[in-house]
């Protein structure tokens, strides 16, 4: 799939990159494969 060119609004700092990895590792980013969500849009896309 061809991606369109995006306009960049934000800059991700190194500190934020570390925090993002930590949030993903701890499960605070919805995981579409988990299928045990309590949120209305958690497992809806599968």
């Amino acid at each position: 799939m061809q991606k369109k060119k995006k306009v960049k609004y934000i800059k991700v700092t190194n500190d934020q990159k570390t925090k993002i990895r930590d949030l993903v590792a701890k499960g605070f980013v919805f995981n579409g494969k988990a299928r045990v969500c309590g949120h209305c849009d958690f497992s809806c896309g599968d």
Partner: protein
Amino acid sequence: MKKEGPEKINRIYLQWHLTNKCNNGCKHCYQHTHQGEDVRLDDADAIIGDFLECCDAFDALPVIALTGGDPMLHNHFWDILAKVKAASQSLTKFSCVSILGNPELLDERNISMLAKFNLKHFQLSIDGMEKKHDEIRYKGSFQRTMQAIRDLSKAGIPVYIMSTLSAHNFREMFDVMKAVYDNGAQHWMFARWVPNQGDCGIPANEYMRFIKKILEEHLQYEKKGYKQLRKEPLIAICRQDSLGIEQGVVSGGCGMGSSTMTMLPDKTLMACRRHPGSIIGKWSPKSNFLYHFVDNPKMEKYRRVEEIEGCRECKLLKYCRGCRAVAYVATGSDFKHDPQCLLHCHN
């Protein structure tokens, strides 16, 4: 044919309230005014672009729900829907835009236009069988909504139904579930009413019995291919398959502090629309989605799930945590137990 799934595993969800204007006046509504500014069309590109870039930073699929009020009452609803759709399509071919709305404007013309957007779903509300539902909304609302379920389904638009539960209507949910599925809904879910203070009035033991029984009946639908009943966090107590997905990792339950956020028409951000104390700030190009998701102290506070009384000792901590909005209005604290949780009562 094998169903094609989304390209990305991670998801970030934005519930975007375009307007406070509403053609309903539900007794349980969290919105105390139908006035106020609408989302400005001029701001839409920057908001959408910023959200998608935030998702990109997480390598996550953007999931966007347009809502209100009734989002279709926004003067530029179709323009904003087109912008959201176009922007998300630049990242994924997966349908990740939904609408949480009302049935009043769903005439043949509008449904036909909506069908062109390949929506993930259109969500409507049913809060009881005809008499009870109409008491909460207005006379004729139940039949109007059922007609909309049939019309949307006929047009190929998946319909999700949300029921808001209180002591006055929860016993009718067995009939509601059957009625909405019989009329063509693809998914039914429920959440408890969050009043200004106190709780929804359902005794914990009765609510646990209700969840167990409604889940038993819903499993018959799931066997036929309907989506799993999950929205209410306390369902995790009754589901046999709640544990063991990823031990030690938050794998479900209340989304507070996780990758979900609500934006009101004036750009106020909330961790959860139903949690009245969860305003975390205002969006601006400098105070953007990434900042709020990653660095906002209030979001960091909501992620301290080990501090939740009654949940920290529970084996379902990573899967449930009760409803934080319900717990907050009942106790005034973000770290008290969910009043309808029977596991806590037994601890």
